[in-house]
């Protein structure tokens, strides 16, 4: 049983070079903490900086100012205790489904005899039995996403970062994967940071929902979700309590979504 890690963003700012040569600021003095074993959902308007926050935490990029730390140590490089489900397809095109799912254990030098049953178990969990020998280009978008999920989850990461992991899935698979994720999280106790555009999903899954402002992202609000666990993700959406929470968060989020949308309308005529 792995134990979740503690995460802290202290005054984190991040800027990027734009194609035109000037700077674009994606994160501005971002501050929040995640307790070990906590499940946090990150929501915010499109383009606000959610994926950027995840890449910093995964050690794929460095912050410009401020510090991202895991268990009190600044993140300087990739750490294999971290699992990452990318927003866009990152499966390996030259590996079959089975080899993609087994890539983590193989890279980590585990004995194939040991991890092969595990691979088979995960392939079954994500509903890809019969597709073991297929290559990614022979799969649908949703199937690729499921390969990516199995690929990340098989390593039972202590810190799980998920960037819209269920966005390409149909409703049924989505609810199966949601339940799987819940079970996994409850048994491993890992820390999860989950990016989604689906506020219902965020509330149904998370202990806390953090709302980010339109870019550059700052923490706009931080909601504790006091719904009892274990939750039945499918049924909980219709309870009074849930709807109230939804109303509260949406009120805050809507303003930011509006700002981002207005900007998109103005942006082209500005130049």
């Amino acid at each position, binding site marked *: 049983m792995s134990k979740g890690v503690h995460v802290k963003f202290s005054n984190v700012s991040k800027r990027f070079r734009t194609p035109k040569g000037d700077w674009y600021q994606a994160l501005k003095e971002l501050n929040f903490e995640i307790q070990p074993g906590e499940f946090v959902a990150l929501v915010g308007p499109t383009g606000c900086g959610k994926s950027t926050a995840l890449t910093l935490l995964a050690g794929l990029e460095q912050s410009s100012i401020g510090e991202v730390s895991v268990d009190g140590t600044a993140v300087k490089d990739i750490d294999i205790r971290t699992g*990452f489900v990318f927003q*866009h397809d*990152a499966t*390996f*095109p030259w590996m079959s489904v089975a080899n993609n799912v087994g890539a983590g254990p193989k*890279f980590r030098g585990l004995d194939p005899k040991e991890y092969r049953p595990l691979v088979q178990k995960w392939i079954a969990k994500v509903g890809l039995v019969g597709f073991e020998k297929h290559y990614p*280009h022979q799969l649908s978008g949703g199937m690729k996403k499921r390969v990516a999920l199995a*690929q990340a989850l098989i390593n039972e990461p202590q810190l799980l970062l998920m960037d819209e992991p269920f966005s390409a899935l149909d409703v049924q698979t989505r609810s199966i994967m949601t339940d799987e994720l819940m079970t996994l999280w409850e048994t491993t106790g890992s820390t999860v940071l989950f990016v989604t555009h689906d506020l219902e999903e965020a509330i149904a899954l998370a202990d806390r929902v953090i709302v980010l402002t339109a870019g550059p992202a700052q923490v706009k609000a931080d909601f504790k979700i006091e719904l009892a666990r274990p939750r039945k993700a499918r049924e909980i959406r219709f309870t009074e309590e849930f709807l109230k929470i939804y109303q509260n968060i949406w009120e805050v989020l809507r303003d930011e979504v509006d700002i981002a949308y207005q900007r998109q309308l103005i942006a082209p005529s500005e130049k």
Partner: protein
Amino acid sequence: MAEDFLSDAEIKRKQTKHRINVHSLQLAVAVALLGSWQILADKKILDPFFYGRPSGVMHQLGVWIQHGTSIGSIWVNAWVTLYEATYGFLAGVILGIIFGVFLARNPTAAEIFAPYIKVSNSIPRVVLGSIFVLWLGLGSISKVALAFVLVFFPVFFNAFQGTREADNKLIANARLLGASKRQVTTKIVFPSALSWITASMHVSFGFALIGAIVGEFLGAQRGLGLLIATAQGNFNPNGVYAAMLLIAIMALTAEWLITKLEDRLLKWRPTQVSGTEH
């Protein structure tokens, strides 16, 4: 609604029909070209003394096969050229891949070596043939060396570029999954550079043959290049063509083998020209 997919047999029949059509047209082109050459030469419109003729080429091949050439058995000479080209090709491909991938993965090393690579690439490589003959003598080694330098650079540049183009997201994913730098190189970067590398291999075997033959022109005791040089000296155009024909057969066979290898190595790619249902 009735399911009326084409049956496998029908698909196969369609493909066979298509192939037969293409092949018979190809044959027709060859017959037309060779036939008009033969007729023009027979009517002395093309002087066979300078231009040769198809029947003369076949005759020359027959003589070589039955009685050998002025420099020994035709098979020995063809074999010498083939293995010079093959050794040069293999050495060039292997070292080209190793250096290309290594330098692309180590940017500092790449920066240090960049000017030297540019300079050595700018040397007209055929000139090196003379130097190799001086250094390494009239034997096969100087030809292998020339074939090698001709193959090395295209493979090197493609391996380098292919490695640089490897998707950063895939590399990041592999590292998060626990891959060491070495595993990233062998399991991620190399496979993604493979299509670049095999692309360069297609042209490279031709270069290797050029290297072997030019090396033989410049000074040799055996080989098809020497045979061509001898035929040229004797005003025997049919001899030149006959040797060229043998070289073409080698090049086409190598091309076929490389394509087979490519299909095997890159079987994970979406098929460009799918064999099924158009």
